[in-house]
């Protein structure tokens, strides 16, 4: 099985297979001898010629981080096709972009109306959690296409709050 892995923005080509308890692993074509078990859901113990690593997976609605010991890495796993379609950052600027709630909370204020102009980084609405208010900012310059969240509504992490075109 081939995986395209991105760690902190750097891409790796990973070939990984397991038959019975034996693993074969090639990272960017380099063979690496590993042994791995899942101690608990989201917790791995990996041995790489003698070195022992405990890996913990931190998943949120928005992203996945992997802890290797005490170091934290933003991790993405994708296949070549999706990679091709997303290579250039420029393309990210095209098309509508969604504003997602980064954590559960309550929508306390909506700062813009639909069809308002907005620059990248400008606050679109305000979500409150644990007595603190967080401005949800526009990921791109453009027009507020849709405001989905209602003022006063409770939202979950990952809920779509608005769309900027």
């Amino acid at each position: 099985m081939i995986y395209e892995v991105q760690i902190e923005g750097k891409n790796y080509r990973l070939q990984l297979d397991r038959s019975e308890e034996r693993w074969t692993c090639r990272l960017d074509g380099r063979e690496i001898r590993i042994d791995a078990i899942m101690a608990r859901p989201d917790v791995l113990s990996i041995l790489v010629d003698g070195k022992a690593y405990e890996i913990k997976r931190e998943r949120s609605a928005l992203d996945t981080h992997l802890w290797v010991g005490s170091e934290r890495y933003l991790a993405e796993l994708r296949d070549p096709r999706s990679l091709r379609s997303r290579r250039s950052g420029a393309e990210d600027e095209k098309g509508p972009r969604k504003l997602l709630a980064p954590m559960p909370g309550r929508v306390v204020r909506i700062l813009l109306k639909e069809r308002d102009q907005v620059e990248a980084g400008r606050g679109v609405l305000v979500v409150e959690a644990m007595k603190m208010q967080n401005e949800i900012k526009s990921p791109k310059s453009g027009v507020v296409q849709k405001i989905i969240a209602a003022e006063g509504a409770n939202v979950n992490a990952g809920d779509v709050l608005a769309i900027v075109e």
Partner: protein
Amino acid sequence: MFKKILIANRGEIAVRIIRACREMGITSVAVFSDVDRASLHVRKADEAYHIGSPAASESYLNITKILDVAKLSGAEAIHPGYGFLSENATFSAACDAARVKFIGPTAASMEMMGSKTRARQQMEVAGIPFVPGTSRGLQSAAEGEEVAARVGYPVMLKAAAGGGGKGMRLVHSPGELKSALEAAQSEAQRSFGDGEVYIEKAILNPRHIEMQVLADEHGNTVYLGERECSIQRRHQKVLEEAPSAIVSPEMRGAMGEVAVRVAKAAKYTNAGTVEFLVDQNKNFYFLEMNTRLQVEHPVTELITGLDLVHLQIRIAAGERLPFTQDEIKIRGHAVECRIYAEDPDNNYFPSPGKITLLLAPSGPGIRRDSGMYEGWNVPIDYDPLLAKLIGYGTDREQAISRLQRALNEYFVGGIKTNISLFRLILNDPDFHAAKLDTGYLDRLLNNRRTDPVPKNAEIAAIAAGVFAVLDPGSAVPSQNGSGQQAIRDDGSARSTWKSVARREALQ
């Protein structure tokens, strides 16, 4: 001794007090709001009563409802914990009126300490050292300029009813004072419904060091040593330690004497904390007195070998302090980390939600006071303190190294926490050298350059694949419905992780 105590609080401190009750053979009564039915303090208490909706004003701040539960359950005393009603003189008085013992000081002591200016007036009578300035609110900018000229610039304007940095202004020169005063007054009015603002000489890069005191109801008052609390963000303490690296036995004795004088001047009873500002020449100035148990009380417990909550309860029951000042021996060093539900990638904004995985540290020199558990949904309605991790050691270095070890074992999945912040602090050379002041943490966070991709990136890459092989379904965060939605909505990497996983599962 009391047979039954009501705990008017929630989270880790409610659990900590319930444990003390159980250890003393006292029945514990918990109260909870709609969103806390599954909280740990309800699981652990002997009795538990629902008191209303999530808004604190409808539950944990609602004096009538809490006293009703006390009556209904037959509780003889109430422990308020910290926050909520713990420093509310009206509540303390209401408890007296209802003949329920309030575990803490009298309403009178609280009121005296409640207003910084009134406290200052009383303490000046008692000869307590203060930062030079006024002990009453400014009537005019002219008065302010006159005082500033006397004590010397820079000066600090502070709200009398203040706290948390609201209504505070630093003024460097006479020209700035008038506008700063008006701004501070209106902010104080908005924040505390009281526009009174006073002026003090500004202490630059001060340390915040506080002294724990205990007073029984028979006139005996002792101090239990200091806590170094200079590491703060947004005027909130983040990490505390005891003893302070800069406090010698002589200085401790001097600060302790003053703290005891403060307590006696306020006719103080039970546990309290006297806060001092310490300048670079180790001069210390009385700041305020916190008339409650502090979040950071465990570091004092570890270096003294005492249990402050047990002692609070014994004092409230009318017992005498079981020791004298010179029987209190400080041994070793303790450091506390406040584990908050905060997102380090989002400027430490609160991050409530469901805890999907919890790996908790233990072992030599590690104490964990926690209000969370795996599977619990951290509500959005209250403050983000999840737990406290405290390291004890023969000396400061060992306490720090044990804490670093334990932080590496600590993992909270499903929500974001500030655990990585403590790794940053505990690795910092200035922290090891104890070069601390209240500006330390902001400097650390601002000067921090993002590191180059660290050495284990390749291991992380392999691990990402191993997860896909061993746990294919997992790419969809199953515990979190919204997660799936986010994945569907958002044409990003996660959806392809999912698709990879799917194909994997078919092989």
